[in-house]
């Protein structure tokens, strides 16, 4: 035991350790403050937090869970990108390969279940924030960012749903994107769209309406796959990441982890 202690002290006092964690073991209040302030990751948090903000029964830890699942999705998604080609020749077979050939391959499983779990976690987070009245002033704007993040979470999951290119995927996206056809004024079968004419020629038709813009074609095809892939891997994650930064920043600026103000 004494040996272990001296080994630990040896490590903590070594030049390498000290160069990374300047503070050492945070065993005094001063060091606890410095540990948080001196770390890029930890300084997301204030130095001190309300007691109620630490209680799981109050926060349900659902905001943190949503963020953690986003990180899980990012990491597993990156690993999947090494194997996956977004073309209709390869998409399905790459997924098959991933399932049958990659040893201990649970990355796709984790990616999919993580996506489902993230949707549920975000809903529960919203539910908790509502039930504690934490959208009230001065937190109105952050609630709005949260709502947009919720929508982005759903869109992330929706665009990802197509990528395996199996029956489940294309028909779910077909059903989901058919709705866009009915957008008032902008969908080929939407109300009022027929009224937008130049002479006798309808300007809104199946080749240029809202659904066409969404899926890049008249039906789900190669360009839909590519489009959804880019949205899924680049556009939406970047947008969500940007909004998350604002979301967390505003949590701090609007009075800290939710609690009575």
């Amino acid at each position, binding site marked *: 035991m004494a040996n272990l202690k001296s080994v630990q002290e040896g490590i903590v006092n070594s030049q390498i350790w000290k160069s990374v964690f300047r503070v050492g073991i945070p065993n005094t209040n001063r060091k606890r403050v410095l540990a948080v302030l001196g770390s890029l990751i*930890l300084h997301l948090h204030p130095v001190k937090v309300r007691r109620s903000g630490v209680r799981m029964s109050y926060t349900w830890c659902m905001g943190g869970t949503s963020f953690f699942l986003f990180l899980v999705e990012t990491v597993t998604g990156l690993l999947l990108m090494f194997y996956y080609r977004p073309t209709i020749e390869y998409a399905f077979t790459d997924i098959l390969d991933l399932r049958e050939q990659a040893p201990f391959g649970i990355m796709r499983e984790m990616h999919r279940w993580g996506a489902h779990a993230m949707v549920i976690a975000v809903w529960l987070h919203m539910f908790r924030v509502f039930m504690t009245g934490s959208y009230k*002033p001065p937190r109105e704007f952050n609630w709005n960012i949260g709502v947009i993040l919720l929508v982005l979470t759903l869109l992330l999951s929706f665009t990802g749903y197509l990528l395996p290119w199996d029956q489940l995927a294309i028909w779910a996206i077909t059903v989901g994107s058919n*709705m866009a056809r009915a957008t008032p004024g902008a969908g080929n079968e939407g109300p009022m769209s027929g009224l937008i004419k130049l002479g006798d020629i309808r300007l809104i038709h199946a080749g240029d309406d809202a659904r066409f813009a969404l899926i890049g074609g008249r039906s789900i095809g190669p360009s839909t796959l590519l489009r959804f892939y880019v949205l899924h891997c680049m556009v939406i994650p970047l947008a969500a990441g940007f909004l998350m930064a604002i979301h967390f920043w505003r949590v701090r600026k609007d009075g800290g982890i939710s609690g009575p103000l």
Partner: protein
Amino acid sequence: MTFLKDFINTLSAASTSFLLLTSVFAFVVFFNLLEGKIRSKVGAIFIAFGTLFVVVGFAVRPLLYLGIAYFVILFMLSNLGGRLWDKRVGLRLLIGALAAFGLSMLDPNFFLIAAKPDNVPIGAMIFLLGIFTWIALRKAYLNDRQLAAGGIPWEKTESDEKLFTWPDLVYTEMLCMILLTIVMIVWSIALRAPLEEAANPTSSPNPAKAPWYFLGLQEMLVYFDPWLAGVVLPTLIIVGLMAIPYIDTNPKGNGYYSFRERKWEIGVFLYGFLVLWSFLIITGTFLRGPNWNFFGPFEYWDPNKLVPLVNVDLSEIIWVKLLGMPLPKLWILRESFGILLVLAYLSLPPLLAAKPFRRFYLKMGGPRYYVGSFLFLFMMALPIKMVLRWLFNLKYIVHIQEIFFNI
């Protein structure tokens, strides 16, 4: 056993289960069960209600079953009263629900749907929603009791007390992350992600379902056309959620659980989130089979199930059935009743602002009052259309196929 399965199958039909949910919800919210005070006279009202259903129900089986369900649920709830928020009672309810779920899994038809890989998270979600709703309301109940006694909510007693982020918060987060990692790994090993045969644009599955979180919208397609169910109403859900902090001017209940101080807000939100959104998703996921027909949880998904198409438009009900005339050729005449009805519905807020809701109007101010009440009207349009469909087989209130404008 067969009776029980038949009982549940019949009750879970969208019409019966929705009516049951809505009225139990109204009962719980408006008769102060959440504050733990159930009055015997309220029980009497509902027993009379139930009796009515039973009497009428001898002719119609779903109504009989609805009556029985009313009796059981309301008798239980009004007996429990405030004890519903007791930890032991909550635990017993959870164990009961889990046991009922486990028993149901023995039924092959139930197992087939509930054990589908993509449906597993939704099954888990039902329990999570139940658990977290109970936790939130329990906390609100405890705080309300404190407030009623002239005290302050417990979050406030703790809000001045600050803890160091290191170690208290960091360790909690660490534990959460470890726990979640374990859950994710076990889940991923235990359950393979679904993969069907390669995409084939020429053969569509029956039923073709959207991803599960959009099944509430797909279920809405039963009652509304795609432009409403798929575009306008989802947009309004997002807008409505974003508008909440600007409409709700109640300064109380900021940052702590409370029901008594925010009855209306919590009532409306829970109705939208649990009774509409979650209910529609659960119905769409577990109870809609081939051709989007309804199947009870213990029913076999028969692709050849025949459901008569008997829905009629409002114009047909009025012109043909009531007035005994052929439908007018001109659509504006044909649909005049429906259009008037919709306009009357939409003019409720200004009419109500004049007298009965004057107090709200003055308290909230014009813009808040109108935005809030229109959003509320759009939300309530869904249950209204659902009930009209079940009662009168009403297809469209306004049906202008000339410009795809159907309500």
